[in-house]
């Protein structure tokens, strides 16, 4: 039972990382119908930016704000700078190409992904970088045999808060309604006076920023970051996006958590080596029987 709860918590933590990244995919897809392959690499970039920032400023910041304060500042720094990178990317690599169709945009996205990955390698070197022990809060709660680290708790709580805030923003505010309207029908939304560019800017700010925050969390949680980690996280988060139904905001969150739980349970109870095979097989099965994802709405094509 203790093992099960432990695995469940592990799954929730992995799942919230996926959920953060998946949201970026989903938002961009909802608005632009574009799979932003570079999104995973933006996540890695966020992790590195925060790493450098902490190396540079953590001593002074920790003295002034305490460790948690320093980490919060690092997250904001990473979020803002990666959001700028995201906007830049949209301006340079997507906006001029997007009108030519979706497939050229996909190649362009792959190109940006390769670029960012190698950019990270060139700037920070091919070696794994590690979040030093002094950045990372330690400590844990002990409940019977169960051991939960403080970091895990903080990650889960901030995930709930951030995702909740985003949910509120998209589902309950006027601006969120505009985003949803654009996702549904861009032309009609434009007729209703919704500024498409503003929505795009929103999507390319929030998505990368969330990805960057996930990057910092991953760095803190696992300590070690690498230039190539964007691929695997990107891929998994993309799977989560599809699981939840692409373009569906709450779906991305549910998909991420679900994927994390699935992975933890399979790794814990079946086989770590076959874990990913099983995860991908489950994904295929779900799509065969629910071709638009778990929460995806069945869209009948207009004839």
């Amino acid at each position, binding site marked *: 039972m203790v093992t099960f709860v432990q695995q469940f918590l592990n799954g929730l933590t992995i799942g919230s990382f996926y959920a953060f990244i998946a949201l970026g995919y989903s938002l961009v897809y909802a608005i632009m119908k574009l799979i932003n392959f570079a999104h995973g690499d933006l996540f890695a970039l966020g992790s590195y930016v925060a790493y450098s920032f902490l190396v540079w400023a953590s001593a002074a910041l920790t003295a002034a704000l305490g460790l948690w304060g320093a980490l919060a500042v690092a997250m904001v720094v990473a979020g803002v700078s990666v959001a700028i990178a995201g906007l830049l990317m949209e301006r340079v690599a997507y906006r001029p190409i997007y009108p030519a169709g979706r497939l050229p945009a996909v190649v362009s996205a792959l190109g940006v992904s390769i670029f960012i990955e190698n950019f990270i390698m060139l700037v920070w070197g*091919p070696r794994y970088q590690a979040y030093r022990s002094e950045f990372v809060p330690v400590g844990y709660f002990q409940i019977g045999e169960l051991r939960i680290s403080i970091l895990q708790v903080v990650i889960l709580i901030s995930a709930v808060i951030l995702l909740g805030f985003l949910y509120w923003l998209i589902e309950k505010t006027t601006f969120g309604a505009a985003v949803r309207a654009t996702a549904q029908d861009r032309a009609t939304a434009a007729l209703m006076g919704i500024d498409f560019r503003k929505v795009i800017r929103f999507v390319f700010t929030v998505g990368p920023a969330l990805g960057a925050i996930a990057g910092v969390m991953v760095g803190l949680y696992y300590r070690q970051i690498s230039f190539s980690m964007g691929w695997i996280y990107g891929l998994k988060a993309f799977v989560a996006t599809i699981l939840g139904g692409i373009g569906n905001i709450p779906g991305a969150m549910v998909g991420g958590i679900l994927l994390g739980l699935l992975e933890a349970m399979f790794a*814990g109870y079946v086989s770590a080596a076959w874990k990913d095979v099983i995860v991908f097989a489950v994904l295929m099965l779900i799509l065969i029987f629910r071709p638009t994802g778990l929460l995806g709405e069945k869209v009948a094509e207009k004839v």
Partner: protein
Amino acid sequence: MRGWKALCGVVTLAVFGLLAMAEEPILIGFQGPLTGPWAVEGDWALKSVQIVVDLINQRGGVLGRPLKLVVEDDSGTPRGGVMAAQRLVTAGVKFVVGTYGSSICMPSSDIYEEAGVLVISYGCTAVNLTARGLKYYFRTSGRDDSQARFFAEYVVPLFGAKRIAIMHDNTTYAKGVAEETLKYLKPAIDAGDVEIVYYDAIVPGERDYTPALTALRDADPDIWYYTGYYPEWALLLRQGKDMGLDWKVVRAVGSNACPISETVRIAGVDAVAGAMITQEPLPAFIKDKYPKAKEFVEAYEAKYGEIHDSPWATYAADAVYTIAFAIEKVGKVDPKAVADLLHSGQVIGEGITGELAFTPEGDRIGVPYSLLICNEKGETELFNPEIHGKLVGLEE
């Protein structure tokens, strides 16, 4: 094309004439992963090889001719390896040091074999590499089974361990060591002396290994052998520590691709202290034993700062010595004659890691291993049963 090549040759000759070199240099090819996931190992190996080449040249070269490095990147992929090998062959190189990674080594060594180029690999430990009956392929490193044997027949009895956990990461090297370990443990298992309580693979490149570690903890092993690479090893130790595992109770032993300094840098001292690795002799630990090692470490530190602790880069350096000694011995720059000499099994000299001699298959004879431990300060020490054994808490 031929004319162009001749022109190139003329230009090269002219340049060297201007440099007033007495003799045409002997080309030594270097093939290694300078980009890609193993770029660090490639970088270290190249630096080490460069040091040895410089040392030899300072003494007047080989047969009075200087050595000259021709460097090719194989980016750590099989296809990259083939392209790099083909480039070196085309460049007219007759002796090559390379490469890191068994599955990259395999196809490239075929190309060298066909071209009659002698190649000595430094970081390829798959047993079957030398089982192919190649004439021109040798390695200065050990094989998966030699390390596995060290663990099974020395380390396990050393701690009197009964319950053994083996974990690998499904890569060529790691799975090889794990399987060979199982093979060497078999007599003890059959005799009922030891028991395998955990055997599974993790997926490299992931971040969260707590699920696997939870399963490991529940298996309650005395000793845990992880065969794999240091990034994952560091995470495993860190997360294991956070889960409350104690390396004095569960003796954590990594295989030789888990250098302690790298592991400490990633995981922090507190997580790694007490963990061990089975390792080929590192230059820092053998520099008082062999003069060549001392000289190498000093030259390396003078040029690049701190010495690396990768055995593979050291083996790469020794590959250069092997080539140099053998050429001196046969008295001509001829890969065939050198290969014949190496196949004969005689000791051709003493390098950085000790005597250099090879079996008829091309394997190194007598690769020593050692058990290293990370102390409380995060430094690497030779394991000493007198000191470290006391921490075990296993012996009655």
